[in-house]
């Protein structure tokens, strides 16, 4: 079986799962609650995927990711309410605004390494959060923003569960595909080199500063897209949705899934969104249970549920994510 063929097969299988099997099952259950949880899991999968690029692949510990998610959400909400733009415009524009902010704030911090960088992102995240909370004239501050319009696109009402889900799923799948290409191609290798030893990468001709800024911008872009999805699905956003706790939650998803592994990040997001919902019957104890699961998974699989090595191997071999040598058919993966 050629790798192209196998990749197609896997992609078709996956898309069928997301766009046919899952909606069918959800429709069969007939519960909008499950749709909601599915949307949320997908949105966080995108958030985790975008953080994976900076934290997992490029090794820049990011403690303020939720702020870019927030910037995207606010951009989408403001564009939708003030300018009356529809989803088709707010999604990319939200991504772009978050990316712009990400690049702007990245510029002064790019000289920083390791934990210094982490703390700078924490500070930047907090500052953006404070702006959302306190710049009342624009963000309406603590009052948050309501999108009365709901989700509409080209005159279609997308606010029913199925269309909402399809929009979210399609956006998330496309975004994850881009993230997959970025992190599993040679570009990912450059980022990984940055993570392993930035000085050494520098000596190889890798423009580490530019790379960091790019990675930050791209990651911000997708966080912004996720923010727009949240704004449109929830219909109401306010600053607490984008606080430090959310950043930590996303980080936990990436770590539980496996730093450096995109499928891991997605799996981590699914677990950490679905688990607290599944544990509702435990009442007050459910958050302890979340802590325990988090702890156990880190203890027993410290490299993540899907470690980087196996994720790369899978992505490159099964998904034909490898690039090849002309003529010779050698694939490039990890074994």
């Amino acid at each position, binding site marked *: 079986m050629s790798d192209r063929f196998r990749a197609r097969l896997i992609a078709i299988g996956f898309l069928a799962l997301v766009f046919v099997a899952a909606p069918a099952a959800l429709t069969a259950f007939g519960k909008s609650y499950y749709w909601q949880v599915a949307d949320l899991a997908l949105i966080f999968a995108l958030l985790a995927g975008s953080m994976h690029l900076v934290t997992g692949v490029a090794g820049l510990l990011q403690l303020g990711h939720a702020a870019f998610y927030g910037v995207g959400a606010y951009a989408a909400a403001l564009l939708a309410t003030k300018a009356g733009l529809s989803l088709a415009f707010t999604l990319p524009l939200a991504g772009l605004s978050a990316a712009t902010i990400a690049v702007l704030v990245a510029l*002064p911090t790019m*000289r920083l390494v390791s934990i*210094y960088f982490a703390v700078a992102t*924490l500070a930047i995240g907090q500052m953006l959060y404070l702006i959302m909370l*306190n710049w009342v004239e624009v963000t309406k501050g603590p009052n948050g923003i309501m999108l009365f319009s709901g989700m509409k696109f080209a005159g279609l009402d997308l606010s029913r569960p199925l269309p909402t889900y399809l929009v979210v799923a399609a956006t998330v799948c496309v975004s994850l595909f881009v993230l997959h290409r970025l992190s599993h191609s040679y570009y990912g290798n450059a980022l990984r080199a940055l993570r392993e030893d930035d000085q050494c990468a520098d000596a190889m001709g890798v423009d580490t500063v530019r790379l960091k800024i790019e990675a930050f911008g791209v990651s911000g872009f997708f966080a912004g897209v996720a923010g727009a999805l949240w704004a449109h699905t929830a219909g109401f956003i306010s600053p607490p949705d984008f606080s*430090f706790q959310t950043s930590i939650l996303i980080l936990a998803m990436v770590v539980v899934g496996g730093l450096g592994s995109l499928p891991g990040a997605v799996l981590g997001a699914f677990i950490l969104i679905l688990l607290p919902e599944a544990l509702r019957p435990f009442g*007050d104890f459910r958050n*302890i249970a979340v802590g325990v699961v988090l702890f156990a998974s880190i203890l027993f699989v410290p490299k993540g549920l899907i470690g980087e090595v196996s994720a790369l191997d899978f992505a490159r071999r099964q998904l034909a994510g490898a690039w090849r040598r002309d003529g010779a058919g050698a694939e490039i993966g990890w074994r």
Partner: protein
Amino acid sequence: MDFYLQQLAIGLSVGMTYALIAIGFTLIFGVLNVVNFAHGEVYTIGAFAGLLVVTTFAPPLLAVLLAVLAVGAFVGVGLERLAFRPFRRFSDEASLKSRAMRESTLMSSLALSIIAREALEIAFGSRFQSVPVAAMINQPIALGPVTITNGDLIILGVAALMLIGLQYVLRHTQVGLSIRAVSNNPLGAKYVGVDVDRTIVWTFAVGSMLGAVAGVLVGFYYGAIFANMGFTPGVKAFVAMVMGGLSSIPGAVVCALLLGVCESLSTAFVSSVWSDMVAYGFLIVTLIFFPRGIFGGARERV
């Protein structure tokens, strides 16, 4: 003028409370190079322990502190066992150098902190606990135009004691050298015969003792003891530690004071809601000029 002096005094006293937490935090970071997310919970547990002791026995403050020290040591040792030791079973180079490992302990301590906080919440609720008036350390003392409290003096005294004591231990004793050695190169420390595990356990015990004492002092100072009390000061202490250059305890203390002053002055000049903004902005500016913290060393040579 008096107004600004008063604000400065308040800022210093707020900074002192951050410094108190930052000392233990920095000590633990110093040995392991990992962020101990559960330090805020150790602080909270210290405060609750102190409160329980006070409400059941009403002993003098010194006795409360001793009891809290014991609790802190116990919690620290437990924390190390659960969240940190398991990850030292990997001694191969890839693991030692892998960020995944470092971030694992970051996450395991985060997980434990979630468990601890939720457990405290179930046990005590998330409301503020009322601190008996007799135990509070907030009697005003007028110093000319400026009012401070007896708590400020106690916190200053304790922080100074901690700082000087730790500096002495770290710089001038074999134990201190071992701690720094483990922090610098744990593998190398094994070759010179440092008992790495024991050093780490001790550091955790001491760091957590300091954290717990910080909790009870700040708790009695503000009269606000609640399950989530460790979060904000924990973040501030983290920021102060990084600004100070990670492994410098005096650096962390100085930066904690700076942060406190920065917050109170920005409330005075701008507004309370933006004061954190000013403090974080200050951090960013500092890092732009001192990418490795104010008191941090240079990057290793190639």
